[in-house]
């Protein structure tokens, strides 16, 4: 007698994977077309989510790059981009609060840049204080210190064409006043379509119509080493009137939430991402169902020959995960190419490890869900049908 093994899960899995892969690869054109379909659907979803991640990163980039602990804003400030004027002496008030190590101002306002060809362009002016906290992280040309010079600004390389300035020394106008390009930054994108223009607070006040000379938008501060940030926050809130005190993380989150949720931009992107995944599910569900229908007689034969229903379900699940896994791998490769290509554009596709892993797991889960109809068809199968020719 041959040695008998218990037909445990491992044996069933091995049999199921042999049958599943051979069944799939038997019809190669359908196999490849399904993978292409899933890959495109996954890419669509990944691209939408990548766009969202890129936008979130763009949206909170200046806040996070400033390297401070606390932001003091006018009450009800919705986002970094919509700074509301507060008196400049709030800087001294904040600096005098116990636990604060350092404080400066920052001004964010909107103005009209005049392209040399006369075309008006909305720009977002970022006025920096003495230490230049909030300056561009990377410079293509020039030194950030240059903005301390009168009429001098830094623009980003991404918007040189839009703004009509290409190199240091080029001139344009903001609100009818002359500006000179003193430096060119790298990778400072904008979420609002209005390019960022960096300058000193002193210069910025002259370009932004809604600010007086003694006004700024934010007080940015660093706390002393070992100080409790929440305690310092509360102290500022108590001692400085008509302001809101936020940590850097809180302000970044508020800004992101505003653009993503309150403006509907994020919702649209999320919905499009989900639609992409749904398209993938439909493609896979239909293909799996068609494959299962084509092979119902074979499944009935296997049932009659003593294969357990669970083994047959495992075949469908294996097919689903094979198709899904390969489709996702191809889609992820497409995304990587697209992300690389978009890295130096105003609309980058970005991701994080958590987002990538989450999306892949979510997609695989959807792939398993897509096999439900096929598994149902197998569940209803009557093995007696093998005797009917």
């Amino acid at each position, binding site marked *: *007698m*041959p*040695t*008998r*093994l*218990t*037909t445990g899960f491992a*044996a069933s899995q*091995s*049999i199921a994977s*042999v*049958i599943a892969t*051979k*069944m799939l*690869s*038997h019809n190669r054109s359908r196999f490849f077309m399904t993978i292409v379909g899933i890959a495109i659907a996954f890419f669509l979803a990944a691209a939408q989510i990548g766009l969202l991640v890129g936008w979130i990163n763009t949206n909170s980039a200046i806040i996070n790059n400033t390297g401070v602990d606390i932001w003091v804003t006018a009450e009800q400030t919705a986002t970094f981009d919509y700074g509301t004027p507060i008196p400049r002496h709030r800087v001294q008030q904040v600096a005098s609060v116990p636990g604060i190590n350092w404080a400066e101002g920052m001004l964010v306002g909107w103005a009209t840049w005049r392209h040399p060809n006369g075309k008006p362009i909305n720009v977002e002016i970022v006025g920096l204080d003495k230490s230049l906290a909030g300056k561009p992280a990377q410079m293509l040309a020039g030194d950030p210190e240059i903005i301390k010079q009168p009429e001098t600004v830094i623009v980003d390389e991404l918007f040189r064409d839009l703004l009509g300035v290409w190199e240091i020394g080029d001139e344009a106008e903001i609100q009818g006043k002359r500006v000179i390009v003193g430096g060119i930054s790298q990778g400072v994108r904008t979420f609002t379509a209005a390019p960022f223009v960096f300058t000193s607070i002193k210069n910025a006040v002259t370009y932004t119509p809604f600010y007086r000379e003694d006004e700024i938008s934010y007080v940015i501060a660093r706390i002393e080493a070992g100080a409790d940030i929440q305690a310092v926050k509360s102290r500022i809130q108590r001692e400085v009137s008509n302001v809101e005190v936020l940590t850097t993380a809180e302000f970044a989150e508020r800004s992101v939430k505003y653009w993503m949720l309150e403006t509907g931009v994020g919702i649209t992107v999320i919905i499009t991402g989900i639609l992409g995944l749904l398209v993938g599910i439909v493609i896979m569900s239909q293909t799996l169902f068609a494959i299962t229908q084509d092979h119902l*007689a*074979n499944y009935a*034969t*296997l*049932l*009659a*020959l*003593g*294969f*357990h*229903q669970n*083994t047959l379900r495992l075949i469908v699940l294996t097919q689903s995960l094979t198709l899904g896994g390969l489709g996702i791998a191809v889609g992820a490769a497409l995304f990587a190419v697209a992300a690389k290509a978009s890295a130096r554009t105003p609309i980058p596709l970005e991701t994080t490890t958590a987002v990538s892993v989450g999306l892949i797991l979510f997609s695989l889960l959807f792939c398993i869900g897509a096999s439900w109809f096929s598994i149902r068809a197998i569940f209803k199968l009557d*093995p*007696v049908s*093998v*005797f*009917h*020719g």
Partner: protein
Amino acid sequence: MKPITKPEPVLVCRGICKSYGSGDIVERVLKRVDLEFSRGQASVLIGPSGSGKTTLLSILGCLLAPTEGELVIGNGMVDFTNKSSLTEVRRQKLGFIFQHAQLLPFMTIQDNLAIIGRNAGMTAADVDQRLDNLLDRLQLKPMRHKLPSQLSGGQRQRVAILRALLHRPSIVLADEPTAALDWNTGKTVVELLLEQARLEQAVLVVVTHDTRMLPLFDRILSIADGILTEQYQTAALENTFYTHS
């Protein structure tokens, strides 16, 4: 005629009835079938269309539950309410041959057979050894790596015979295995099936419409209107069970 020691039956039907429908419209397809099958015994099941042949074969194959009666395989009574145990019986104790062989079209002959052995709990080494032996016996070695579509109908049925015997079942059930074959090929296939089933000491039950095949079997089971009659036609077999005083 005085009975002597009768071999232990491998397959026993006791009072098997099968009805379809309910209420006023009940069709009784099988009416109290009592049968015993012993090791190495080859029976042929004949009868007109709709007489209940396939129903009986399906019950013997643990694919269909009888309305009444008991089925005993080996030492155990089959529990038709437990799907899992039915699968287990089919997996270990039964071999099937269908009208159209029904090999998986996307797998080679080797793979078609190996999955049956593996599913029955044989090790890969056992499967290989057994396959070598059976492929040799059935002269199928050159076909080993071919797809079913590359084989003739007769060759496919030979593979189906091999598939049915691979895991050493105690019972082999065949549903019109020659229906799709010409007479000569069909006869060769049935002769091969009988030879191999006897060699393996398996109970063989074959459903056929072809009365020319009947002389090849030990016993003829004839079914009409759900009533079964049996006739032994091999003296040697009769003598195995009974002796004249």
